[in-house]
């Protein structure tokens, strides 16, 4: 039962757990289920949990074209990004202390890179074009003899823009530079093949793909092995790369969610493209709006729109019947408007007046009708209030 009167259009922030996934998770929590510690190989409860963890590992691996042994469980994409960036850079510090990334990366990447800078590394932050694209040529020009790592996100969390990670991966492989991809927004939405894309490290998370929050994974290439220095120390789980008791129910949820996402991806994408295009037509009808991000090279479930002539905080508040995310800094602890939109060259004012609508598996036709009506009504109302000023 939906206890909120809001229409949920914030699936890029997080998705609800698919009921089919939740059912599998519950089986791991109750006394009659696989509640044992997967590391307790000495009894049946532990062995049952271990079997489920390994099944989930295979499910996640299959979704991204990897082998099960390439998957390291983490607490989510933030930890995966930190482990990949800090772990690889520190391990290979003798090979060079230069890293290449982009200004529009997620904070989990940017803040990990800042930590590297504090440790004496140098980072080149590439500026995307006005559509949010980081061109592979920019990476080629930025890589130096002492570059040991390139980190680039697959799909941007604010604009939905898809980067050409395959071209960057191929270049990095040829140059012997490690390549990390933050795929938090693309796993389950786009076909992913780490081998074909020449990816060495890839961060994924469950809760953007109808799995639970609090679990993710890092793909780690094994042949030849990518050296990683752990950032967590303890029981030596996950081949010593990531210590900590494995959360069976979370991991099972992630495996199930990725399996469902892979099986239903084509149908989901087709349905969401129709809904998103209809939402865009309805929003564009109010006039004086800008689509943020590349018009074609983007995922099908996301729209980021700036509204001219409307103040950001008023827009958010007027549309509070819609659960969306905003580029405005007014209601957040941050003092700057969306740094991603600013990096695309949007003015502070337009970045403030932006909203991200992200659709998902449970978004209905009726939700889109409500969203279009609300946007048209409130944007026109607010514009009339300030007309002529």
């Amino acid at each position, binding site marked *: 039962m939906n206890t909120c009167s809001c229409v949920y259009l914030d699936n890029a922030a997080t998705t609800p757990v698919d009921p089919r996934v939740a059912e599998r998770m519950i089986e791991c929590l109750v006394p009659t289920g696989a509640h044992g510690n997967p590391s307790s190989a000495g009894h049946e409860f532990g062995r049952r949990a271990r079997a489920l963890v390994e099944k989930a590992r295979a499910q996640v691996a299959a979704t991204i074209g990897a082998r099960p042994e390439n998957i390291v469980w983490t607490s989510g994409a933030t930890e995966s990004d930190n482990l990949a960036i800090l772990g690889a850079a520190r391990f290979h510090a003798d090979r060079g202390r230069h890293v290449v990334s982009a200004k529009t990366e997620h904070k989990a990447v940017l803040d990990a890179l800042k930590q590297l800078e504090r440790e004496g590394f140098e980072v080149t932050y590439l500026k995307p074009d006005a559509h949010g694209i980081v061109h592979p040529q920019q990476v080629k020009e930025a890589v130096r003899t002492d570059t040991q790592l390139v980190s680039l996100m697959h799909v941007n969390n604010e604009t939905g823009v898809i980067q050409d990670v395959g071209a960057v991966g191929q270049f990095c492989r040829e140059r012997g530079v490690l390549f990390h991809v933050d795929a938090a927004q693309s796993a389950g939405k786009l076909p992913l093949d780490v081998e074909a894309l020449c990816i060495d490290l890839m961060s994924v998370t469950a809760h953007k793909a109808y799995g639970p929050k609090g679990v993710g994974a890092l793909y780690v290439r094994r042949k030849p092995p990518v050296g990683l220095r752990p950032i967590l120390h303890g029981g030596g789980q996950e081949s010593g790369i990531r210590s900590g008791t494995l959360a069976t129910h979370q991991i099972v949820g992630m495996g199930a969610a990725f399996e469902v996402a892979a099986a239903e991806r084509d149908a989901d994408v087709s349905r969401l493209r129709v809904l998103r295009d209809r939402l865009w037509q309805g929003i564009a009808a109010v006039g004086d709006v800008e689509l943020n991000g590349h018009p074609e090279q983007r995922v099908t479930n996301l729209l980021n729109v700036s509204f001219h002539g409307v103040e950001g905080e*008023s827009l958010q508040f007027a549309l509070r019947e819609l659960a*969306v995310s905003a580029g405005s800094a007014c209601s957040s602890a*941050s003092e700057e408007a969306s740094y991603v939109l600013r990096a695309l060259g949007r003015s502070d*004012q337009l970045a403030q007046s932006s909203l991200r609508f992200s659709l998902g598996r449970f978004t209905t036709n009726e939700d889109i009708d409500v969203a279009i009506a609300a946007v048209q009504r409130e944007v026109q109302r607010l514009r009339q*209030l*300030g007309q002529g*000023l």
Partner: protein
Amino acid sequence: MTAVTSPGPEYSDIVVDHFERPRNVGRFEPAADVIEGSAGRREQGAVFTLSAILSARVADSFIKSVRFKAYGCPHCIAAGSWLSERLVGCTQDELQRWSWREVAAATDIPPEKRGRLLILEDAVRALSEAWRLSV
């Protein structure tokens, strides 16, 4: 990106009421008994225009009616709407002495937003000056 939150303590009931149902929105056509004052820029986050019809063009006249237009956050819009009711009946002297503190207290606007109310006060000052020049 920040999640858009439901109405919380940052918006008082009176702010929500005036934001959703702003009173006296608009602008009077220029006329001998109409005065107007504006302040702010969009880059500053708030713009206000106040226009008023005076009771008579004599020194002790009062404001008969007010219209406002506003670009800004919900607090700004609510403050402009609240003021459009408050200024009815004001004399020139009362208008000259009006302070943003009155609307801040009446609508429970948080301290971090009070800077924008200074822009509204500037619009009132401009209205007052227009009145002075019209006499």
